[in-house]
């Protein structure tokens, strides 16, 4: 998929002599030759990528995908562009895989600025030795996620790196969305007194991945929350057009998202420990490893700042959607301590929630 490959073969998987619909190389692995740009590269594109990701734009196989946005622009829409590199170990984890993440991560970044996600580009850096069946499975998951999120993959590229020089698979996606006229989310709108809402439970993704990580694995009913938030946020913005600002609390968790909001808007934020939604199994896993659910990654949650008078509507709207069932108001914007997030503890104490520095390391005991 260099640019978009020029070749007019059918996009469906090849069938072997026996009529088996599976790719014909199910015991094979990706080799450096697959990245050479020749027949093997074309093979990979035709048997792995096009069947999963194909759409009219991609199938035209030009050097660049051409997409129509004239009508949106005519209505005052603006382009939103976001890019995200996705690496995760293991590649498949409870509740998702790098395939879904590569779509959800970029789609949700678009959604946070109020954009309707439309197109993706995808770059795949594949480590030599990755089984082709595994690659097919991951790309198929990616294709399904893209369809569910309403985005078309309109350009792509693959490179193969030597064994030991990649981590199985890395996927870089760039997303293009349309911000409809009239929507202007951002820090400038945030006011003291606003309500701070989170759309569901915290820490599910990070702990699900950690639970299956090599040498740290533990058994628990943990599932990633990886999900596209376009519908949930569209519903929120329709019901609550005065919504000030949105963030997805991915890496660095809620602590990072709230600190970013407080810094960007030059306001203080106060949250209540007792209000924070954390599944008991996530809380228990965090305690076991000495991690703070506030700093653990989410991949299907949104933090929303809304005017206090709209908070009830916003919550009702979020809770009406399957991805927002556990939405809850966790705190408020305050005029004091601009740039700082404070937390009222369950036992009546207080502390500050700093911006996390790096990845948390599990503790000894």
């Amino acid at each position, binding site marked *: 998929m260099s640019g978009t490959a020029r070749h007019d073969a059918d996009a469906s998987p090849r069938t072997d002599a026996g009529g088996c619909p599976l790719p014909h190389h199910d015991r094979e692995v990706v080799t450096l030759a697959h990245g050479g740009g020749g027949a093997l590269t074309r093979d990979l594109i035709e048997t792995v990528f096009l069947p999963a990701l194909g759409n009219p734009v991609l199938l035209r196989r030009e050097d660049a995908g051409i997409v129509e946005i004239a009508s949106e622009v005519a209505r005052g829409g603006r382009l939103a562009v976001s890019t995200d590199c996705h690496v995760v170990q293991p590649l498949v984890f409870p509740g998702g895989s790098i395939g879904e993440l590569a779509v959800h991560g970029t789609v949700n970044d678009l959604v946070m600025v109020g954009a309707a996600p439309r197109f993706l580009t995808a770059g795949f850096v594949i480590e030599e030795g990755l089984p082709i069946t595994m690659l097919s499975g991951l790309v198929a998951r990616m294709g399904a996620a893209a369809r569910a999120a309403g985005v078309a993959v309109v350009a792509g590229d693959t490179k193969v790196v030597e064994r030991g020089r990649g981590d199985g698979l890395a996927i870089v996606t760039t997303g293009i969305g349309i911000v409809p006229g009239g929507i202007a989310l951002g820090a400038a709108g945030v006011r003291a007194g606003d309500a701070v809402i989170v759309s569901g439970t915290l820490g599910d993704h990070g702990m699900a991945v950690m639970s299956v990580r090599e040498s740290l694995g*533990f058994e628990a009913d943990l599932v990633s929350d990886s999900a596209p938030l376009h519908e949930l946020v569209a519903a929120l913005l329709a019901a609550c057009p005065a919504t000030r600002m949105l963030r997805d609390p991915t890496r660095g968790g809620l602590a990072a998202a709230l600190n970013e909001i407080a810094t960007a808007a030059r306001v203080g934020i106060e949250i209540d420990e007792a209000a924070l939604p954390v599944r008991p199994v996530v809380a228990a896993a965090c305690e076991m490893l*000495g991690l703070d659910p506030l700093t653990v990654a989410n991949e299907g949650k949104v933090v929303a700042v809304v005017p206090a008078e709209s908070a009830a509507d916003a919550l009702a709207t979020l809770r009406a959607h399957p991805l927002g069932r556990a939405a809850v108001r966790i705190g408020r914007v305050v005029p004091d301590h601009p740039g700082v997030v404070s937390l009222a503890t*369950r*036992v*009546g104490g207080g502390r500050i929630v700093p911006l996390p520095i790096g990845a948390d*390391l599990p*503790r*000894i005991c």
Partner: protein
Amino acid sequence: MSLVAPFRDEGTARRLLAEIARTVTRPWRIMEVCGGQTHALVRSGIDRLLPPGIEMLHGPGCPVCVTPVETIDRALAIARRREVTFCSFGDMLRVPGTDGDLLGVKARGGDVRMVASPLDALDLAARLPDREVVFFAIGFETTAPATAIAARLTRSRGVRNLSFLVAHVLVPPALQAIVRSAGTRVDAFLAAGHVCSVTGWHRYRDLATRFGVPIVIAGFEPVDLLEAIRRAVVQLEAGRHEAENAYPRAVSETGNALAQEAIAEVFEPCDREWRGIGTIPASGWRFTAAYRDIDAVTRFPAPALPSARLTVCRSGEVLVGALRPDACPAFGRECTPRTPLGATMVSGEGACAAYWHAGRARP
């Protein structure tokens, strides 16, 4: 979690706080021994809800923090060897030695792995028969039993490619060193509940008498800590100094017999240096003669190299309660978790890190 909920209950916490406030008539200095307790106090903000007369001192119970530079330097030297797969608990990876930390060794090509248990290292040794797997065995009486069991299995399974760099330490000798040190006045101890769940708390009776200070065995939830503080204050106000168990749901009189038996078979006491404190007699464990061939020091002999002394870092004073983290001139300035000068800023159990993560750095 419903098991824990009562121990985080706001009403109970407020009632205990009120009771402590009613009981106290004079200033008292109470030291919580374990870093996990420090973390819980600071995270919940309890230390600031206590009546002004009660000052909490943070103790030396952070195993990562007290591991001496020489031992970390040795770990770094072993981890750099090409044939070695070096396994460590997560929070040890960033603790600075003289020349970098384990994460730095990993970044430069060393095979350094984070594990949650010495048994994971045992599994790794079986999976990587061509590698020399080394486990960095740190921790108090809490983690020592797992090391002992892994050592026994190493022996009984005939595993030849696993060894242990042992830096285990014991709590009671450290308490004694603090009581006898000139710089710190500790009126009462909250003993580390999880250590006592292994050793039992009977031996603390004798220590309380000898030291002349109350020792209350404490848990790790806000209500556990408040109840233990309340009991310590009641004793102090009454002029008593006894050991008592405020964590009975985890700690028994005699402790965990299986764990003690494993330790007794594999380890013997030895003098050990504590980072920032100095050598404390009989405060560590080393392998008995029968196990010395799986000691990484034996397997990878190296001359003792001169280790740097960090001059700016005053973590030694922090570890014995002589200096509050936020009273250190480097705290939150030169020294943050991003650029730690000492181990107390690295570990999740270190008092300096606990203060930083609760946002107690000056702006």
